[in-house]
């Protein structure tokens, strides 16, 4: 198993684990025309949910873009995102996972990866940024478990040189 040397010092522990409690389970059906990430965030925050684990079950897109990883030749990080790939619909969402947490300023942030099928049957997938994935007919369906006691907060990570979600205890 190949290991990579990160740009910053490795910090201990190598696993961060925070116990949490369920604060409710929800099925969300988003409407056509909504943006996937922004729609999920809006639906959950309207219910007072700021921390959640999301399973994407199904959906369609009118248009979407995704990012995939690649080596970072700058040497500042071991990997980074490449240029976005745009797919024009109909595109079908066949699965995905997302985490709802908060950015460093306390605003809601959804980190979403998904796999989709394009109009020609080709399978694609990657990181789905907010604002570029407009849902098509039927919208999308997600199952959500809301978290209490712990969640994800963005913090600077010196080891990887990214600002990323870190498990955090919640008041």
């Amino acid at each position, binding site marked *: *198993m*190949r*290991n*990579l040397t*990160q740009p910053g010092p*490795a*910090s201990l522990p*190598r*696993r*961060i*684990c*925070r*116990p*949490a*409690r*369920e604060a409710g389970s929800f099925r969300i059906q988003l409407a056509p025309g909504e943006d996937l990430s922004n729609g999920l965030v809006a639906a959950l925050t309207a219910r007072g949910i700021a921390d959640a*684990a*999301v*399973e994407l079950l199904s959906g369609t897109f009118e248009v979407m873009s*995704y990012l*995939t*990883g*690649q*080596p*970072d030749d700058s040497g500042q*990080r*071991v*990997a*980074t995102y*490449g240029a976005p*790939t745009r797919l024009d619909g109909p595109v079908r969402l066949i*699965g*995905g*996972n*997302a*985490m709802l947490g908060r950015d460093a300023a306390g605003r809601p942030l959804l*980190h*979403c*990866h*998904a*796999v989709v099928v394009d109009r020609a049957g080709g*399978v*694609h*997938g*990657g*990181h789905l940024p907010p604002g570029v994935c407009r849902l098509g007919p039927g919208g999308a369906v997600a199952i959500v*478990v809301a*978290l209490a006691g*712990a*969640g*994800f907060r963005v913090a600077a*990570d010196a*080891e*990887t040189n*990214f600002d*990323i*979600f*870190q*498990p955090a205890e919640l008041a």
Partner: protein
Amino acid sequence: MPEAESRDVVLEAGRFGRLAVIRLKPNEDLVSGVEAAAAEVGIVCGVVRSAVGSLVDAALGYGSGETAGVTSVEGPGVEILTLSGELRPDEAGHPRAFLQGTISDSDARVYGGVFLRDANPICITLELVVQEWLPDAAEEVG
């Protein structure tokens, strides 16, 4: 999912319990890292509720027996697109992870299979939420 040892259908009644919010850091092995994290919070039986992350390289198993094979994907920057699966206790009562899913490489090709042990090092991070599954006594059906 663990390989079934008998041909009987097993229906396991139960309920969901506690959750764990987990991050695995770079170079941790996906499968053994999930097991160690679950053990740390005292979960031996559970399901993955969501997972988002990336791998240095990936090794995905498919088929079984004589047809078993491995898809090896070189990174870094392999994205985990979907990850599902469960934790079940082994004979000693330790959690064992059975994880499968889909990944993409730097050319946006997508692959799927079972994540193999000691072969899927974390690249930047793995964000994971696991929920405990609390089984009642299992019943054999039919």
